[in-house]
């Protein structure tokens, strides 16, 4: 548009001065802008630190590796769940879908004897179908996701029982069967690829590259923001932040390289996190999910295909359930009729602890991952200290409440300003 005629402006015409204030003020402001996200990160660090002081074994290479192996499937579920929650829905059936897809893969390998990768593809296909089923009822018929997935929870659990004939099925470890490569998905490691003495050099290299990649992408973002005249953290703050993250990443790689090597599942998880961070932040589909959750009516009146988007969010959730189903059955080397019971609650809790809004429209993949890790670290740390399951449940319940209460208080304070 060409220039407008000068218009008389009111007394409030002066722009808010954003460049003023010292460095400390800027940091406080940037933290404040992101209080929810940084709050959860601080909490995660504090919890990890506390456990490392309480129990030396917590930061041992073996335990760090175990945390990854034990909680990867919850994190995978949380990725799918985040999109569902941001879209303003909920999915209670993910535990059952996980059970069904894992059972199917196991049956195909053990009873039918298909190659392991065929079993994986079939499981993923069934996951997509489960998701499409739920998406149909939510998007086309217009039933709230809560109800649809409550039905799905029973439905898919029942199908799991039928698939397994009500008994658990062990995946054999005989070398000539399809069992071992399948089990490796969740229990395999890359080790000794390019040597290293008492540690796996390849693992360290991967983490160093990851750290460099992080620093590079942060730098590119910063350059872009500066080019568009946006507020950025002062350079020393920026360097400190990147250096800290880099150090933690490399340290973590160094630690786990002294155990069994680089877990395959960590690679899978990292790929999913990167892909879905991009999908949510950089694609039109992701934008539509946030728009629908933020204001459904406005999204509709902006020409967004609301039903279509809702449908695909559920299809995607089904796919992630299948991935987690494969990972879980591989990890357990077996399929059980009750596999995945209650996992939906872990995935939902991870999203809410990680800052997702119960009303939809707000939430990040990174937040959900840290939320899931907080639960994982709490669980693992308390286990190491010999705390009973009963107490662990109480603590986890309280953490969920406190995290969401914190969220509300922060929002109210922001609203009061």
């Amino acid at each position, binding site marked *: 548009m060409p220039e407008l005629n000068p218009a008389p*402006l*009111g007394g409030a015409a002066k722009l808010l001065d954003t460049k003023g204030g010292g460095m400390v003020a800027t940091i406080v402001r940037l933290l404040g802008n992101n209080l929810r996200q940084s709050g959860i990160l601080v909490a995660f660090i504090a919890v990890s630190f506390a456990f490392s002081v309480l129990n030396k074994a917590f930061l041992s290479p073996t335990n760090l590796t175990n945390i990854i192996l034990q909680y990867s499937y919850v994190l995978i579920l949380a990725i799918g769940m985040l999109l569902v929650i941001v879209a303003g829905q909920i999915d209670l059936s993910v535990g059952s879908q996980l059970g069904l897809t894992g059972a199917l893969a196991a049956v195909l390998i053990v009873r039918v004897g298909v190659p392991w990768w065929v079993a994986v593809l079939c499981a993923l296909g069934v996951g997509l179908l489960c998701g499409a089923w739920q998406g149909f009822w939510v998007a086309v018929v217009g039933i709230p996701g809560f109800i649809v997935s409550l039905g799905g929870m029973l439905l898919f659990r029942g199908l799991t029982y039928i698939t397994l004939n009500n008994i658990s099925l062990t995946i054999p470890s005989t070398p000539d069967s399809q069992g071992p490569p399948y089990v490796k998905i969740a229990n395999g490691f890359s080790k000794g690829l390019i040597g290293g003495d008492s540690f796996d050099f390849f693992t360290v290299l991967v983490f160093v590259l990851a750290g460099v990649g992080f620093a590079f992408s942060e730098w590119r973002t910063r350059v872009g923001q500066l080019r568009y005249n946006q507020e950025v953290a002062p350079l020393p703050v920026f360097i400190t932040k990147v250096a800290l993250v880099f150090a933690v990443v490399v340290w973590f790689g160094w630690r786990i390289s002294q155990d069994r090597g680089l877990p395959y599942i960590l690679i899978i998880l990292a790929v999913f996190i990167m892909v879905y961070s991009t999908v949510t932040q950089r694609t*039109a589909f992701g*934008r539509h999910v*946030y728009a629908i959750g933020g204001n459904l009516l*406005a999204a509709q*009146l902006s020409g967004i295909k609301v039903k279509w988007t809702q449908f695909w969010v559920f299809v995607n959730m089904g796919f992630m359930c299948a991935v987690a189903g494969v990972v879980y059955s591989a990890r357990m080397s077996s399929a059980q009729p009750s596999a995945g019971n209650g996992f939906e609650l872990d995935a939902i809790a991870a999203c809410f602890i990680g800052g997702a809004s119960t009303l939809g429209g707000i939430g990040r993949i990174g937040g959900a991952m840290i939320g899931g890790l907080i639960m994982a670290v709490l669980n693992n740390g308390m286990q190491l200290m010999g705390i009973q399951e009963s107490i662990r449940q109480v603590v986890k319940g309280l953490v969920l409440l406190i995290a969401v209460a914190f969220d509300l208080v922060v929002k109210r304070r922001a609203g009061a300003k």
Partner: protein
Amino acid sequence: MSSDTILEMRAITKAFFGVAAVEDVNLVVKRGEIHAICGENGAGKSTLMKVLSGVHPHGSYSGEIIFDGEPVTFGSIADSERAGIVIIHQELALSPYLSIAENLFLRHERKSKFGLIDWNRTNKEAQDLMERVGLVENPTTLVSQIGVGKQQLVEIAKALFRDVKLLILDEPTAALNDNDSEHLLNLIRNLKAQGITCIMISHKLSEIVAIADTTTVIRDGKTIETLDMRDPASTQEKLIRLMVGRDLEHRYPERESHIADEVFRVENWSVAHPTQPGRLVVNDASFNVRAGEVVGIAGLMGAGRTELAMSIFGKSYGRFLHGKIYIHGKDVQLNSVSDAINVGLAYATEDRKRYGLNLTEDVRINICAAGLPKLTSFGWINANEELKVAERYRDDMRIKTPSVLYPVSNLSGGNQQKVVLSKWLFTTPDVLILDEPTRGIDVGAKFEIYTLINQMVSEGKAVVVISSELPELLGVCDRIYTLSFGKITGQLPVSEATQENLMELMTLELEKETSNA
């Protein structure tokens, strides 16, 4: 004390975020009269009634209320109800899946000795109350199963049960057909005979003239005049003059019209209410807009303005019955919002916060929400381009925000409106429908919005402005249609339009047509 005055409101001032909605308003209501309050939308009628009924609690306004001879300080609706003031809102506050009797005694359940609900007594007493308002129904019928007219009677019966002294009715007949309206007006006369004072807010001037003893006209948050309706000089014409007669010192930016060919035409457009198939919300409406032209649609609340616009915009409202849309002379079918956007139509909604903006997101994302396909290739958003677009509109539209990454919820109303306009301009439309584009924004920002509208038409776009503020329409339009009860009742070039003749057309009731439809 003063036995013939039941209510006196003295020097009431109530401001929202520094903008006065009512200012220094005085209202005196005599005992046992029917007192009508009229004024344009946004004149402050509803605010005044909310002050009176305690919705805006004591302390949030300044001034004094004297009810029944005593100064009163209501902190909530419950307080005012205890004093005998009951307000019946336009949107009825009944619980749809409870029976008539249950609704009548909500919070005052008829109980037996043991604290359980005594259903016989409940239904018997309900029957008595229903007889008083002439409602013939079974008390156990669910409220959702009776029509709006009968629901209104339930509300009034509920008020009678609470020993109402002063009954306030906000647009009681707006949603009623002629028969129901007639019944309701008779009932109000009846209540008057029983000594109940009644304040009635209405847009239907014929009703006011027929029923009111006294009428207070409010304009721009101030009381203009209180008329004795027995005086033969108190006519509809006089009411219209008082309602609109503000000094036209609002400034509107100058514009030279360069009107070209027709861009957009709607023919015989009819739409029914989404859940009440028999109720025509838009009734056989036809209008057109030409390039470089600003066309106004004037209508009071409930006239079907927004419903008309939304139903045109990809059938986003109600049940489509019939009608055609032509763009550049070509007959088009618009079955979804994206269809509408694709043919060059844009609709900036009336209620920004509900329909226009995603308040959880920043300015940039809101600006690019409707035109996102233009920034997307193979599903990927070009983030740099998106920022550039947002920055460009921020400059062009003078959106006052610290950054385009700033939450849109923190912006003022005027700036939020500019974000909405930016969002639609980015889709490069040929036709913009702007629904109440300046509602709730201050005078300075209004001027900027008008300037932007001029800007749009000077680029050859066609603009439709929907508004209930007549000076605004007279200030910015080339041609004005009037809409009343879903029908287009007239069309005037701005040179011939006055606030008086527009208001007359806007309150015209085409009774035959509406009741037969």
